[in-house]
């Protein structure tokens, strides 16, 4: 979590992917796991997200939502499709595409 490389984007400009709806397109600005999730440590969740290629700068798009409570979600991450629950997706902070384009340049 205390990765020096982490881009510290202004929290106000980033929303959690866990709140986004189907069709959302954006770019990951930070991985910020709020805390231990029901027995699984925050650093474990962070590493699992990273292992699926969900890192700062990756482009994400919500392709599908689950049938019950719009959960889990299927997210396109740079060409791979990952299914995950909204609870974990809350840790993925995203900026919308325009914002991402600006920060990339």
């Amino acid at each position, binding site marked *: 979590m205390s990765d020096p490389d982490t881009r510290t984007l202004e929290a106000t400009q980033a929303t959690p992917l866990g709140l986004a709806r189907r069709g959302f397109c954006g770019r990951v600005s930070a991985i910020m796991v709020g805390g231990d999730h029901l027995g699984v440590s925050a650093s474990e969740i962070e590493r699992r997200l990273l292992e699926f290629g969900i890192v700062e700068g990756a482009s994400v798009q919500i392709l*599908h939502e689950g049938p019950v409570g719009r959960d889990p979600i299927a997210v396109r991450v740079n060409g791979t499709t990952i299914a995950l629950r909204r609870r974990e997706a809350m840790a993925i902070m995203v900026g919308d595409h325009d914002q991402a384009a600006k920060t990339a340049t």
Partner: protein
Amino acid sequence: MTAIEVNDWRIALVGTPNCGKTALFNALTGSRQKVANYAGVTVERKSGVLRTASGHRVDLIDLPGTYSLRGRSPDEDITRDVILGKLASESPPDFLLCVADATNLRVALRLVIELKRVHRPMLLVLNMIDIARRRGVDIDLDKLSAELGVPVVTSTAVRRGGIDDLLCRIDEIAGKPTGAIAESDWTTPAASDLRAAQREADRVIRAAISEPAKPDTWTTRVDAVLLHPVWGMVALLLLLFVMFQAVFAWAEPAMELISQGFDALGALSAAVLPDGLLQSFIQNGVISGVGSVIVFLPQILILFLFILLLEDLGYMARAAFLMDRIMGGAGLHGRAFIPLLSSFACAIPGIMATRVIDNKRDRLTTIMVAPLMTCSARIPVYTLIIAAFVPNQPVLGVLGLQGLVMFGLYALGIFSALAVSFVANRFFWRDSATPPFMLELPDYKLPQLRSVLMNLYQRAMAFLKRAGTTIFSMMVLIWFLASFPRPPEGATEPAIDFSLAAMIGRWIEPVLAPIGFNWQISVALIPGMAAREVAVASLGTVYAIEGGNEAAEQVGQMLAGQWSFATALAFLAWYVFAPQCASTLAVIKRETGGWRWVLTTFFYMLSMAYLAAFVTYRVALALGWG
């Protein structure tokens, strides 16, 4: 002597799930192994022998797919321990064959970068290169190799021709005198290490690969329907329903044929052999016993065909996606869907497949409820009782009542599995750690006909072998129990009344009488412990000997004449829950490492079976179906 030169090379296949590693393994070794599209299907150690172009012998190990060497599940622990040479039983591999799906390189290259820290000779194989090229992905192999610092070769695992180049490269690299291999300096990566590795991988991709931004349009279009909140669920339910109707309807002609074949064989033996013990043994013990089990081969194969096709297509991960919340409500992990679906074929592969669930609690819950899924060994029992007692009348024009009852029994099994796991979660697990559900949804791929047929053939052989060994010996035992001791001279009652079977059955009967079971059922349940389907054959044998060698008569017709409708229903209810399979209990012991979960499973299932049969029987009696 050239003993030093002919040392085998030990090569390990490593890669992320769904990268086609198992298909490559099959192409390289010709070994017959399961190829599937679901993340983490390779759960057992698979090894095979191959010869390189120069004739060198290679011992190839197929490791379970992993995203990292961190070891988050029993599967991934194995991968890590083999690669790092930590397993006492395994010497560390001389060489790592790293497999990556050329259409999906980001995550794979991060793993390659992590693997480099182990400091073993390595070769990166870009699998499914044909699909990548068709999608317009342009990979500069020399550049990729230079940027990564690892030699790279392309291959198409599903075509034999695609691997010759690979074999040459293995020779070239593994044949080089390596000198002293550096010690591994791999340590468990922290989040910052993973970030750095992913950035490095992304840098390499930018330098060596130009890919169009468009995803696989076919997968996207199919998913628009199959993952749709409404249509996706409709499709899943429809699929399950078609599966069960198919098991019932498509198998019929083949079953008819097998059944007629065994009848003819029985009649032949009756005609050829003289009346007496030998004839009774061959006709009732061997032919009708084994025949009444083999007749269900077509149904079992149809069920396995569905499961294999869905796995290879990549649909299984989608089913887990759709079912995650629904199963989560019952305290099951979305990943448990695959083991539970496999348990419809047989609880043994299902319980073994729970190794993909990394959380211990979720895994134990899944193992405990897996035997409640209606396995293929229950099909013979259900089919027989339904055919004998339920009229085959159409319902709503298209559906058969028999098929609906079958569907109802399956539904009852599923419902009770969910209920049991819900109760287990509420009352037995104090800490409520629910691990994250994260799963790759691989692109759809057309199943390889060859691999599906190979797997189906293996299933058929395994079933026939079981019929030839376990089931056969049980049949001999039940025939012996039902035939000895012989009745005294001049006895008027049926011979079986004097037999050991009758004594055992009558001894158990008081316990089972409240649920409507007579002594014939009681005795048939004993060999049913070895294999559920044997109970059918046992009933056949018991009644055939009782009725005086009329084995040609169908078991079903016989039962219809002997049992009340209430007893038949109670018997079905018993079979939904009864822990009647010694091999399942043995696998639970192996997978959980002790008797505790075996006994827990056995007693909770036994109590449910007794209770369900009791309630069913009493209600049926009250309705006047006695």
